[in-house]
């Protein structure tokens, strides 16, 4: 049998003989390994191939280099913004390993600083909400100020205009038979610092009465806050007061990070999901196409009219797929027809800011934090 004969036979059977395989090594992976490397297969039983192939020599035996070339990374990496507002954004990040995408997510949640109320000095609280519960509620109110303008307050520091923001809350329900809702709008910024005086001994020893902060100047005289007073997120209910009940307190906000306490997290939440890929492995026509369209609660499929009057199912909105797997649950036939996958290096990233910084700035800051970490390790090693 001649070479050409065997080639014809091989093609006819859909089978490639080892003798006819293209010369190895080629720079590319065979298709079945490429699929395993780049896609998660979401089958009825479980997701398959969920791991990433990180080791540079993973495919050395078939002559494929799996190491990362920086040029390749630069050529393949892209970002596409799909939604952007003052509070939230969504973007696609393509061509990046999950370990790095996850690092950004973790930094956004836990390691980017914001200002949050940490100390509450309560002069009077006759409301039904206990002092400690009230203080906790105050802590969770987002403060709309750029944390980069402030320093951390460490243990031995005195609170000053560079590390502390002071708010005052003084409300009393004066109307009989009425109930007063106290909202975050009632918190007023004190740019000159605390107004509460420290008690007894300091009063007698020094001529000037000491307060709980030592501001050298008023914060509203600083250029960054001049025409731009510090405010908190409006309309958050703090407490409800009955007739005659009163709250008088001072809240001191300091800089911190989310891993200390979630109140310092700059995001309401931040998450990503991998791009769903829905592939019809065979033509689905007529009644079956209708059934498939009906099955999907996320409305991923559409029906296309062919020229000869037949109807065929198409994948119209793969991004809407939630991988609920309804479409492949009814027996093996469906699992063969429809293949649900996720692209391992394509992330749909969502950031919901709490208002301190816009979401696009948060992401840039998160990347900078990771850079700083690397720099620290490099300087430690040198």
């Amino acid at each position: 049998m001649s070479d050409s004969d065997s080639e014809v036979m091989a093609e006819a059977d859909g089978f490639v003989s080892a003798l006819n395989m293209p010369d190895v090594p080629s720079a590319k992976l065979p298709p079945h390994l490429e699929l395993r490397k780049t896609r998660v297969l979401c089958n009825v039983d479980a997701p398959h191939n969920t791991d990433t192939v990180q080791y540079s020599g993973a495919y050395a035996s078939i002559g494929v280099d799996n190491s990362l070339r920086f040029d390749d990374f630069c050529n393949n990496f892209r970002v596409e913004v799909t939604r952007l507002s003052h509070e939230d954004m969504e973007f696609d990040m393509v061509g990046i390993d999950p370990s790095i995408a996850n690092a950004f997510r973790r930094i956004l949640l836990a390691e980017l600083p914001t200002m949050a109320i940490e100390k509450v000095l309560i002069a009077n609280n006759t409301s039904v909400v206990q002092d400690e519960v009230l203080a906790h509620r105050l802590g969770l109110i987002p403060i709309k100020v750029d944390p980069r303008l402030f320093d951390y307050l460490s243990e031995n520091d005195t609170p000053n205009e560079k590390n502390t923001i002071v708010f005052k809350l003084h409300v009393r329900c004066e109307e009989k038979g009425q109930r007063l809702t106290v909202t975050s709008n009632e918190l007023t910024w004190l740019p000159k610092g605390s107004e509460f005086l420290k008690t007894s001994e300091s009063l007698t020893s020094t001529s000037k009465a000491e307060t709980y902060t030592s501001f050298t100047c008023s914060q509203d005289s600083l250029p960054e806050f001049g025409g731009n007073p510090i405010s908190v997120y409006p309309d958050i209910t703090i407490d409800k007061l009955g007739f005659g009940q009163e709250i008088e307190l001072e809240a001191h906000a300091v800089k911190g990070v989310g891993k200390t306490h979630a109140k310092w997290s700059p995001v309401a939440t931040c998450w990503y999901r991998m791009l769903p890929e829905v592939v019809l492995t065979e033509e689905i026509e007529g009644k079956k196409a209708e059934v498939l369209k009906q099955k999907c609660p996320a409305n991923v499929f559409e029906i296309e009219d062919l020229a000869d009057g037949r109807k065929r199912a198409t994948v119209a909105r793969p991004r809407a797929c939630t991988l609920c797997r309804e479409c492949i649950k009814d027996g093996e036939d469906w699992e063969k027809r429809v293949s649900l996958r996720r692209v391992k290096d394509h992330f749909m990233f969502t950031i919901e800011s709490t208002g301190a910084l816009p979401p696009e700035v948060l992401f840039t800051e998160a990347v900078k934090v990771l850079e700083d970490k690397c720099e620290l390790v490099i300087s430690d090693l040198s």
Partner: protein
Amino acid sequence: MEHASFGDQRNATFSLAEEDHTLANALRFTLNQDPRVIFCGYSIPHPSEARVNIRVQTTGEPAREVLKDSCQDLMLMCQHIRGTFDKAVNDFRTTNPPDNHPSQDMDSD
């Protein structure tokens, strides 16, 4: 940072204080992508201690240099990501002028 290596520069364990999965997992990726690395992995010895150990074994180069290069790689990637992201945001802004955003009026109060 501790650097525990027993006479052999090629194999070493680095102990990073105040770090966690965020950096270690990203570094494990860049280290694994380096052809000079035979093995690398990380562990957090105790969950209530902020510390992570990174193990690096190389084909010949000192492990310390390889780890340094990996950090450098990660930094370069970060810089590229930042540049690409800023450009994508600017592109989005030019095609979708900000007055289309309904949440803008929130800032007016």
